[in-house]
C-alpha cells in the first residue's frame, strides 16, 4: 500500500476528485493548508499599508491505495491539477505498512 499526498490549487479539488473517481478511487481525505514556494503570495492592504501575504492557500489530498494503482492515480491527478502556471503543486508517494477500516476491522487492500 502507498499514500499519495497531493498539494494542489484549491479550485482544482473537484476536478481531481472526478479524475480519481473515474479510475475507481472514491475515498480520500482532504485538508486546507498553506503553501510556500516559488509562487508568490498576493499583496493585501491592511490598515492603510500594503503587505505581501507570502503563502498561498492550497488543498492537500491524501489517498491511500494499492501500489499497482499509483502510476494511474498520479497521472490522473497531474492531468486534472495542472494549469502550467507556477504553484500547481506537488505529489508525494509515501509507504503505508498497514491500513484498517475502523467500522469492520478489514485490513489493507480490503480497508479502502
Amino acid at each position, binding site marked *: 500500500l502507498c499514500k499519495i499526498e497531493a498539494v494542489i490549487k484549491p479550485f482544482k479539488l473537484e476536478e481531481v476528485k472526478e479524475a480519481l*473517481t*473515474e*479510475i*475507481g*478511487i*472514491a475515498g480520500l481525505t482532504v485538508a486546507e493548508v498553506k503553501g510556500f514556494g516559488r509562487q508568490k503570495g498576493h499583496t493585501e492592504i491592511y490598515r492603510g499599508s500594503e503587505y505581501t501575504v507570502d503563502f498561498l492557500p492550497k488543498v492537500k489530498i491524501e489517498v491511500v491505495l*494499492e501500489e*499497482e*494503482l499509483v502510476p*494511474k492515480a498520479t497521472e490522473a491527478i497531474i492531468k486534472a491539477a495542472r494549469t502550467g502556471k507556477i504553484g500547481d503543486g506537488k505529489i508525494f508517494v509515501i509507504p503505508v505498512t498497514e491500513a484498517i*477500516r475502523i467500522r469492520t476491522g*478489514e*485490513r489493507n*487492500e*480490503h480497508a479502502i
Partner: protein
Amino acid sequence: REGRRARALGAYLGFAVGDALGATVEFLSAEEIAESYGVHRRMIGGGWLGLKPGQVTDDTEMCLAVGRAILALGRFDPCSMAEELVRWYRGRPVDVGATCLQGIRRYLTDGSLDALPSRWHGGNGACLRNLPVILATLGDEEAFGRWTIGQCHFTHNHRFSDAGTLALGEMVRSLVGGEGISGARAAADRLIARHPVFAFDPHPASSSGYVVDTIQTVFFTFFGSDSFASCLIATVNRGGDADSTGALAGMLAGATYTAEGIPRGWLRKLSAKVVNEIESQVDGLLALADTRKR
C-alpha cells in the same frame, strides 16, 4: 407460461420493492426502527442515502446491469458484465458496496475478471445481483451454476457467498417453476446440511450484510410468512442491511405470490423507468432461457 412470467416478474419487481422499502432503514437496528417508525411499512425514501420515495439502490441497479450484459450478448460473458458494471459505476450511482467497488477498481486497473479468494469477501454484494442469471438459465442447470460462480467471482470469492448465491438461485428456479414453498424449503435445507452456518432457528443472530446473516434473515422471514407484504415488513423491520435483505426476501416472495401479490401502493412508488426496464428484462431473460433449454 403465464404463471412462469407472473412469478419471474414477481421476483424481479419484488426485489426492487424490497430494495426501496428497506433502504429507508438500512443500517438501523430493529430498536432504532421501532423508535423512529414504529412499524416501517411505507415507501418514504430517506434513509442514510437520502432517497426519494420508491428509489432503488445499488442492489437493483447491479441486477439491471447484469441483465443488460446478458441480454446484449445472449449469454453471460464476464467481460461484458464488467463493462456494464463500470458504466453503472461511472454514472455516479447513489451507493456502491465496498467490496463491489474494490472489484470494479481492480478490473479498471488490470482488466482481471476474477477476485482472489478472501476471507473478507463474505458480504452479500455478489449474491444480490444474481437474479438475471437465474432467469436466463431456467432451462439449463449447468449454465446456472457456471454463470453464477462466474459473476460472483468478479467481486466476491468466498465459499459462503458462492454457496448462498447458488442456494437462493435454486430456490428461485424451483419457485418460478411452480414447485411452491416446499421446493424452496428443500433447497434451503440442502444448503444448511452442507453449511450448517446458514441455520436460522430459532432466529437469525443478526441481519448484517455478511452473506450468512443476510440469508439466515431472508430464510427466517420468507418461510415464516404467508404473503408478500407480511414477508417484506418482517424483513425490513429487522434492520441491518435492510435494503439487501428486503430485496432478497422480495425476490423469493415475489416468485411465490407473483407480481399480483405485490401491494399496488408499493409498486406505484417505483420509478416508471425501473419498472419498464425490469419488465423488458424479464421477458428477454425468459426468452433466452427457452432458447437454452436442454
